[in-house]
């Protein structure tokens, strides 16, 4: 890779493509990969389209190169176009993919998940993370014949109507009428909620730690998860762990295992197939007949190529002990960035698990300084975000980390000079 460019990147081809897109696609690029939900601030500092990706990097359609700490918002866990995963997927593609009957590859993957994930007695496959969180809620309601769901404030469990809120367009009050909210790490509040609605709560759903957007991420307090487990058992509430985001980066046996408990249901997606599209809900034996009773399927949910890719991905993650690698790399990257900020008189806060670190410049309460820093980084080839936790992948090299810190330092210098 070249040295830190003196001039920021330009994106002529990206913007021309975006103009084409805006004519035929609502908002041009809707959703989290687009300028709005992706928080492209300021708008013109960010490209719109990529042309290729390999390992820890991708290139935009103007030819600009980026070290990518978003990893497609999580799926890239081994490195883009990992040769082992791609070979397994290609081999399966030569045989079959979407057919009238499923491939036994589905059984192979289910067996691998049951052997790997500590709390899993079975696996049910779908495509997106939201498919599995919705399935988990339906399963809990079918199993308990109760209506209410307890969420942790600041949650994100997908985009189905039940995951949204009273004031969201297109979401009816009835869609969220049975949603209850408790603060993170608040066992006493959770118990009060369980007592107040005793016999009515089907499930408690939570990510393994609070990795909400725009706020410092918060790990579970000592004893928190065991306390949650005990309360769920006491009140007959199904404990659902949404491991869509953190899964496969903290602990290959599941993030519930990482924090010392076993969930009743656990949701996986993102990193499970290194970019090949599938998701899985795993769960306990006592819920197996409940999930089997549901009407829940999709056109591509049993496609064989992603199953083969997931088997190769999980096998390789085990071989390289990916969670240990991610923890070490994450600590190296975040400590380097925090130190670089300090050299320019700025205060960077890194929070959450090192494998999925969240960054925030804490020198103002508006995130404007942080948004400036992110924009300078992106325009020099370091893809970070101002709103979301980051993701590590196993292909990140020592040289990548050095280059990361070099660009981060230059961006801090520019921000400090502009705001000094």
């Amino acid at each position, binding site marked *: 890779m070249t040295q830190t460019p003196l001039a920021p990147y330009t994106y002529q081809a990206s913007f021309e493509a*975006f103009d084409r897109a*805006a004519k035929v696609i*609502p*908002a*041009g*690029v*809707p959703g989290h990969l*687009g*300028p*709005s939900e992706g*928080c492209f*601030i*300021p*708008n*013109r500092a960010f490209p719109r389209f990529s042309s290729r990706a390999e390992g820890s990097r991708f290139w935009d359609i103007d030819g600009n190169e980026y070290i990518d700490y978003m990893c497609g918002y999580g799926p890239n866990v081994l490195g883009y176009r990992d040769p082992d995963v791609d070979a397994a997927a290609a081999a399966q593609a030569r045989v079959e993919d979407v057919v009238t009957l499923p491939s036994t590859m589905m059984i192979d993957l289910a067996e691998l998940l049951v052997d790997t994930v500590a709390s899993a007695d079975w696996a049910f496959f779908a495509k997106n993370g939201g498919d599995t969180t919705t399935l988990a809620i339906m399963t809990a309601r079918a199993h308990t014949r109760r209506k209410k769901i307890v969420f942790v404030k600041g949650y994100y469990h997908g985009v189905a109507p039940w995951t949204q*809120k*009273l*004031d*969201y*367009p*297109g*979401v*009816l*009050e009835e869609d969220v009428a049975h949603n209850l909210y408790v603060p993170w790490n608040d066992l006493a509040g959770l118990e009060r909620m369980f007592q107040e609605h005793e016999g009515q709560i089907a499930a408690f759903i939570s990510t393994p730690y609070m990795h909400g*957007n*725009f706020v410092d991420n918060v790990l579970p307090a000592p004893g928190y998860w065991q306390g949650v487990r005990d309360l769920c058992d006491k009140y007959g509430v199904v404990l659902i762990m949404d491991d869509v985001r953190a899964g496969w980066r903290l602990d290959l046996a599941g993030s519930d295992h990482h924090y010392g408990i076993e969930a009743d249901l656990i949701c996986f997606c993102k990193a499970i197939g290194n970019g090949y599209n599938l998701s899985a809900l795993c769960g306990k034996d006592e819920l197996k007949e409940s999930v089997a009773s549901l009407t829940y399927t999709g056109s591509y949910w049993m496609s064989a190529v992603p199953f083969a890719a997931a088997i190769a991905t999980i096998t390789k993650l085990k071989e390289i002990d990916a969670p240990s690698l991610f923890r070490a790399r994450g600590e190296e990257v975040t400590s380097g960035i925090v130190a670089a900020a300090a050299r320019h008189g700025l205060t960077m806060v890194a929070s959450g698990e090192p494998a999925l670190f969240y960054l925030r410049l804490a020198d103002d*309460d*508006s*995130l*404007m300084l942080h*948004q400036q820093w992110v924009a300078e980084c992106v325009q020099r080839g370091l893809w970070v975000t101002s*709103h979301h936790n980051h993701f590590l992948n196993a292909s990140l090299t020592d040289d990548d980390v050095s280059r990361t810190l070099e660009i981060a330092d230059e961006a801090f210098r520019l921000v400090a000079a502009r705001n000094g």
Partner: protein
Amino acid sequence: MLTELDPRVTAHINAHAVLGALPVLVARVPEAAQALAALDKPTTVLFKAPGVAEAAYTFTREGVTPGAAAGARKVTLRFTSPAHLNRMVDGAAQPIPFGSPAGLRFLVGPFSELADLLGRYLRPGPSDLSDPEFAETSTVMTLHVAAAAIAQVANHDRSGRFSASMVPDGEVALEVGDQIDLRLRVDDSDFAFVRTAPSAPPRAALRFADLTVAGDVLAGRASALGSICDGTLGMRGYIPMLDNVSRILDRVGHYLGD
């Protein structure tokens, strides 16, 4: 998303946001200023409806200011219900006026002229908008109404209060280029439209590239999301504030839309 509207919230919007654009109207439109040129003394008009926070505007030869003024002639418009107030603003009902003969003459004279002009600028016809100066004033007034209505919806509407409960303290700016910087102040989930000039940077800002973009977004001719994506509507700062203010603005659109 609530599908029903609350007439009490509509009345708050009408009393405090729609009529709240009168100062802008008189400041920008010579015809409106002319309507007050012959005013013999300051006159305060009060709007009273059950369940609606009282609104008052004081009219002088120099302009209109929100609130009552000591020593001013007082005229009170009473309404039997929030819906009655709303019908008056729509031109479909009459208020019950209380005041001196001079005060009542003010109502049927200058105030009536201003009300007609207000309606024309806030609901312009196509021929009005072909005049660039008219269109600009109309958009500026609409922006003021929208900003003031955000505060009313945030404080009084069920959906608005839900959104407001998730907005941290601080000021949110609605900017148009470098010309306009309207502020909403949030304090413990309570919203206020700030009518004085800003004195400090906001915690978060929505920035329309120009008045045309602002007019298109506020009139629903362009989506806010699409405008953010194409860069004509910029955002910066603490985005959760903007996220929730945008939801309240959507709800404002339900109340003010056709």
